[in-house]
């Protein structure tokens, strides 16, 4: 490093600045700036720098290219990134191996490297230049912008962008009062928390009595999730120093301290170096620039105490004592460090000062809102696409920051809340997205600006957990001086912890509110006074989440471990202990696994084949790889049990209690009957079709669910004592009154949803238009259906895929086309079913909607369609398809099969039944206990909810059986909520590291495509034993992570 020359006067300084500016301007080289803040370095930016240097040398480009290692460019998400000047090309996620290409293509041949360009998460387009990237576009990077221009370890680089010219300006003619006045007029407010007007603060310290005064730079950035101060210290330390020197001059301080976190080693390194350079240059020290102004700066390192961000605690810490706050007044401006007048500002506040001096207070106060001037840096982190440091003018809305700059929420998830202001701040919900960001608006909304942390949360974030997190932080960081804070944070944490563990009580919420108020009123410093904010703001906007934890023992975001236990079991509507039977499979204990499965599920073989497996969707193994093949494992156990002659032990049950009638023999009715028999009631199922099973029998084709499998489950249900009367329909063969007259004491209506929805387009009544359900029904019952050669299906659900796969199997069918109005991503059918359909030669046309059925002589000859594009999001969170005018086209067809959904057919309900029907055509009943408006009559399954899934219907059957039992026993009808827990805890198996690394989801073996042709043989063949065991061993055994789980297996440590 060149020795820095001492600058002796203001003129000297101005000359040095001018010569450095000229030097920068005359630079003919390309400059490659590598972002190398702490995050950049953690991502390997220094390795990239090395490779770039080598590549430049190798190509003999040293005279054409300069490599500059800079501080953070702000766009942390795409580290390491480099900017090539003067072209302003932005390359992201650069790896050392890319260096050669950058040198040989971009530098030598002026070619851009497509793979290194940023791709916009919203539009999907690649962007060449830094300023065109949506992340940077709406920002106003007055402070952060310079980070990418300078090498923070070189004072000359700072001088070359006009650095220290504000100091020159101040010392060459402004009086301290004028400086203070300028800062006052600018409207600058403290950037570290409460937002006190900086100029006034300075004035207090200036006017305070005493010859010795201090200034302090608060760089104890303790708010978790905020790191703008770190970035400024790392990337532009001289600007902070310049601000401090100006402040010291204005206040009359001769000593300044930078109190910086020890957790920021790079920042400490850079600021230390900057101080020594400034000393050598004569910008700090005695008789600065030949004036009578003396000022020195030293560093005091924090030792990890959040409370030291508070002024008086910070002062105690600088003095080498325990960092406890003290009563104010006297304020530090009067009595601060060593009892002398002291002015404290944070890093970002100091960094604003040179700008205000340089460009004037009017310029500064023109930016922002009435009460909040200038820009503010936010660290946009959490569940956000473009994580990074964002500098925006005050008054911008949350929405602009999160969606325009931040690019929205990753993975298409929904925005839930944004937490601002660190532990003293609060969480703001969706309807606050239009809030303009300034000190007052944020406070009014129940949060604060704080130091500018902005943590974005999606639907997978639990707000009770967030409150618990902050309380845990605060009880840990409370210095303990005030009881209201020390005990208040502790007790609030205990209460919220209980709530998060499913042990919450009704009175907890009001108790929390009282404690929160007490902590606010009676604590000495900001930490205690604001400690309740995370609780109060989450209670204000997300009270329902607290309530669902307390009353229903549910954590909707699936976060609170003690409530969730194993997510697979937790989300299963029928509480199947998946992690338990998986653990047993892993140990080869198939019989025990079988017992665990059948305990909670009367249709286990069915579920092993066609369940929509919500368990797999939430499987934690899926977060780090692929979810466990839970459904396939269940099927394995059930197939094994059937082949080995294991039976569900339900024969010879004593069923002599009251008679109960069940209308509908689908999964809901069968389950209700089975469970009632287990409870000792006499259950009779009335089924209108010739076979029991409902949708399972007639809606799901044989190639997915063979009849013999369904019948095995049904036979078992019959063995439990259930009577099934087929071909007996309500409204035709009997009425509800009849049932009561015949001595039935309760009725459960579970008639399903079998009526297909109409397309509502011209021509749909023509010959050759067959509703999907009708087709599946006919084929399942063995009726002959002629479809012709060309078949078209409208829809994208499971019924559409089922109909398509049935069609392609029918005798003379040659070609099947599915027409779907959205894209594959939005298709509601099971992924694996769509794959199978495609493999079997079915064509799927996306973004296509039917306009009219083409008819000739009363018979279908095709369908006219229109192409669609995806527009804005609709209520379901999917992008709404919008027709493209003039894009009509037609498809020739022999048969058209609409499959756009079903709804309940309640034409059997007669006035005399006295049942209320909803506007959606479903039977009205209580959601919790399934009781209808008529005494003794319950309703559930699809007839109540509209079309849902098999396992949800089974759950409805279970709930109905429980409610009916309570009703017949004369008990109060109410759902019992309890924590989801396994009935037994199975010892975990040990996996080798190699096994962990290599573990991959077991693939379901399938019938070859040839063997599937024109027949209905089951396509999925089932996992073999060895594969099943291997798959089961992958399970992470989440249920062992709860306290109960740890205790059960003796892992209490």
């Amino acid at each position, binding site marked *: 490093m060149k020795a820095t020359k001492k600058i002796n006067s203001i003129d000297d300084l101005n000359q040095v600045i001018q010569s450095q500016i000229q030097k920068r301007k005359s630079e003919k080289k390309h400059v490659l700036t590598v972002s190398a803040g702490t995050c950049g370095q*953690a*991502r390997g930016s220094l390795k990239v720098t090395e490779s770039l240097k080598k590549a430049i040398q190798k190509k003999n480009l040293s005279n054409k290219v300069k490599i500059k290692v800079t501080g953070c460019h702000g766009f*942390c998400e795409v580290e390491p990134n480099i900017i090539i000047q003067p072209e302003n090309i932005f390359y992201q996620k650069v790896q050392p191996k890319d260096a050669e290409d950058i040198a040989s293509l971009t530098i030598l041949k002026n070619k851009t490297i497509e793979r290194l360009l940023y791709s916009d998460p919203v539009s999907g387009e690649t962007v060449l230049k830094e300023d065109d990237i949506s992340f940077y576009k709406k920002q106003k990077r007055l402070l952060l912008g310079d980070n990418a221009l300078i090498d923070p370890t070189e004072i000359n680089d700072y001088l070359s962008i006009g650095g220290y010219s504000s100091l020159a300006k101040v010392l060459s003619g402004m009086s301290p009062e004028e400086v203070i006045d300028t800062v006052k007029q600018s409207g600058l407010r403290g950037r570290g928390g409460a937002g006190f007007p900086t100029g006034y603060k300075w004035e207090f310290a200036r006017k305070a009595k005493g010859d010795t005064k201090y200034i302090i730079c608060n760089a104890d950035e303790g708010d*978790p*999730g905020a790191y703008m101060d770190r970035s400024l210290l790392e990337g532009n330390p001289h600007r902070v120093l310049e601000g401090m020197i100006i402040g010291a001059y204005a206040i009359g301080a001769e000593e300044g301290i930078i109190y910086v976190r020890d957790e920021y080693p790079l920042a400490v390194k850079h600021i230390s170096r900057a101080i020594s350079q400034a000393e050598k240059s004569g910008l700090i020290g005695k008789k600065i620039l030949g004036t009578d102004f003396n000022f020195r700066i030293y560093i005091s390192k924090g*030792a*990890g105490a959040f409370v030291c961000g508070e002024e008086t605690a910070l002062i105690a810490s*600088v003095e080498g004592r*325990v960092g406890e706050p003290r009563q104010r007044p006297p304020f530090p401006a009067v009595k601060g460090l060593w009892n002398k007048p002291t002015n404290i500002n944070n890093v970002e506040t100091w960094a604003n000062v040179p700008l205000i001096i340089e460009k004037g207070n009017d310029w500064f106060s023109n930016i922002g809102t009435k009460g909040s001037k200038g820009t503010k840096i936010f660290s946009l982190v959490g569940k956000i696409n473009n994580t990074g440091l964002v500098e925006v003018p005050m008054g911008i809305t949350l929405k602009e920051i999160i969606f325009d700059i931040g690019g929205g929420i990753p993975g298409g998830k929904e925005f839930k809340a944004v937490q601002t202001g660190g532990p003293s701040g609060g969480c703001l919900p969706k309807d606050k997205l239009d809030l303009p960001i300034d000190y007052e608006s944020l406070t009014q909304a129940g949060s604060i600006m704080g130091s500018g942390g902005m943590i974005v949360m999606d639907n997978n974030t639990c707000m009770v957990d967030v409150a618990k997190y902050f309380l845990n932080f605060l009880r840990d960081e409370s210095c303990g001086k005030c009881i209201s804070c020390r005990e208040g944070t502790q007790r609030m944490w205990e209460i919220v912890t209980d709530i998060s563990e499913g042990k919450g009580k009704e009175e907890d919420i009001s108790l929390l509110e009282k404690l929160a108020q007490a902590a606010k009123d009676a604590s000495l410093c900001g930490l205690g006074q604001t400690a309740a904010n995370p609780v109060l703001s989450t209670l204000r906007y997300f009270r329902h989440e607290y309530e669902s934890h307390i009353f229903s023992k549910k954590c909707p975001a699936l976060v609170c471990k003690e409530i969730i236990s194993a997510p697979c079991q937790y989300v299963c509507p029928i509480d199947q202990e998946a992690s338990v039977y998986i653990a047993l499979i892993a140990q080869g204990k198939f019989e025990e696994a079988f017992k665990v499965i059948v305990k909670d599920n009367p249709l286990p073989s069915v579920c092993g084949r066609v369940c929509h497996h919500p368990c797999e969707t939430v499987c934690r193994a899926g977060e780090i790889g692929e979810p466990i093949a839970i459904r396939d494992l269940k099927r394995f156990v059930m197939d094994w049990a059937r082949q080995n002659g294991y039976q569900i032990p339900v024969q010879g049950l004593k069923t002599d209690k009251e008679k109960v009638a069940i209308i509908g023999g689908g999964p809901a009715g069968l389950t209700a009957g089975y469970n009632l028999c287990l409870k000792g009631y006499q259950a009779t199922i009335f089924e209108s079709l010739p076979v029991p099973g409902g949708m399972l029998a007639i809606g799901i084709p044989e190639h997915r669910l063979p009849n013999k499998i369904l019948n095995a489950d049904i036979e078992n249900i019959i063995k439990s004592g259930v009577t099934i009367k087929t071909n007996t329909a309500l409204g035709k063969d009997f009425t509800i009154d009849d049932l009561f007259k015949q001595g039935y004491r309760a009725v459960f209506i579970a008639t399903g949803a079998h009526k297909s929805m109409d397309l509502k387009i011209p021509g749909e009544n023509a010959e050759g238009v067959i509703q999907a359900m009708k087709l599946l029904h006919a084929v399942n019952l063995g009726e002959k259906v002629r479809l012709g050669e060309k078949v078209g299906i409208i829809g994208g659900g499971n019924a559409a895929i089922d109909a398509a796969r049935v069609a392609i199997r029918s005798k003379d069918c040659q070609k099947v086309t599915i027409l779907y109005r959205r894209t594959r991503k939005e298709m509601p059918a099971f992924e694996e079913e769509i794959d199978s359909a495609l493999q079997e030669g079915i064509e799927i046309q996306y973004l296509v909607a039917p306009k009219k059925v083409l008819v000739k002589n009363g018979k279908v000859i095709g369908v006219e369609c229109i192409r669609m594009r995806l527009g804005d999001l609709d209520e379901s969170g999917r992008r709404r398809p919008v027709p493209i005018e003039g894009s009509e086209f037609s498809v020739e067809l022999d048969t058209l099969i609409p499959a756009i959904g079903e709804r309940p057919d309640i034409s059997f309900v007669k006035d005399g039944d006295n049942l209320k029907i909803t506007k959606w055509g479903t039977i009205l009943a209580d959601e919790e206990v399934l009781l209808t408006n008529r005494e003794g009559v319950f309703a559930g399954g699809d007839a109540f909810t509209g079309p849902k899934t098999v396992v949800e219907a089974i759950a409805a059957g279970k709930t109905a059986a429980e409610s009916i039992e309570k009703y017949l026993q004369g008990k109060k009808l109410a759902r019992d909520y309890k924590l989801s827990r396994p009935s037994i805890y199975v010892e975990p198996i040990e996996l080798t590291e190699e096994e962990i690394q290599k573990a991959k989801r077991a693939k379901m073996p399938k019938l070859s495509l040839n063997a599937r042709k024109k027949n209905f043989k089951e396509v999925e063949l089932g996992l073999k034993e060895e594969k099943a065991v291997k798959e089961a061993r992958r399970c992470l055994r989440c249920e062992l992570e709860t306290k109960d789980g740890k205790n059960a297996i003796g892992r209490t440590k």
Partner: protein
Amino acid sequence: MELQESKIKSFVTKYNSEKKALISILQEIQEEYNYLPQDALRIVSETLGIPLIDIVGVATFYRAFSLEPRGRHIVTVCLGTACHVRGGLKILEEFERKLNIKAGETTADKEFSLETVACLGCCAIGPVVVVDGSYHAQTTIRNVGSILKQYKKKEKKNESN
């Protein structure tokens, strides 16, 4: 490591034996010994003229100080808000399980100490784990094992050299 009185005293004199430098002096001692040995605190107390009880007060108030010997490798798991919402706690639990110690403890063989920090300010790359000063970005419970292995491996290599 044996305690050298002269070394401790040199830390004190480096800061002109000023009382206000207590925290910096303790930081230097911890840097050297990985923790604050009792005898060292006694020496600091005598040289600086600060009662031992006050020194212990400071040493226990600040999170950065340890009165217990720490392991050869310091594993620090960030539990800042951004790391938290991305599953930092699960990472910590995985380290606890793999090392069979709780946060704040040291393994019996004195190889690893497991610590937490409230935020490292590298929120973009969370969950973050720092081992002996080097940062591990976007950790998952699946690579906790391999992170530890890296440090175990190094030892073996060094031993065979």
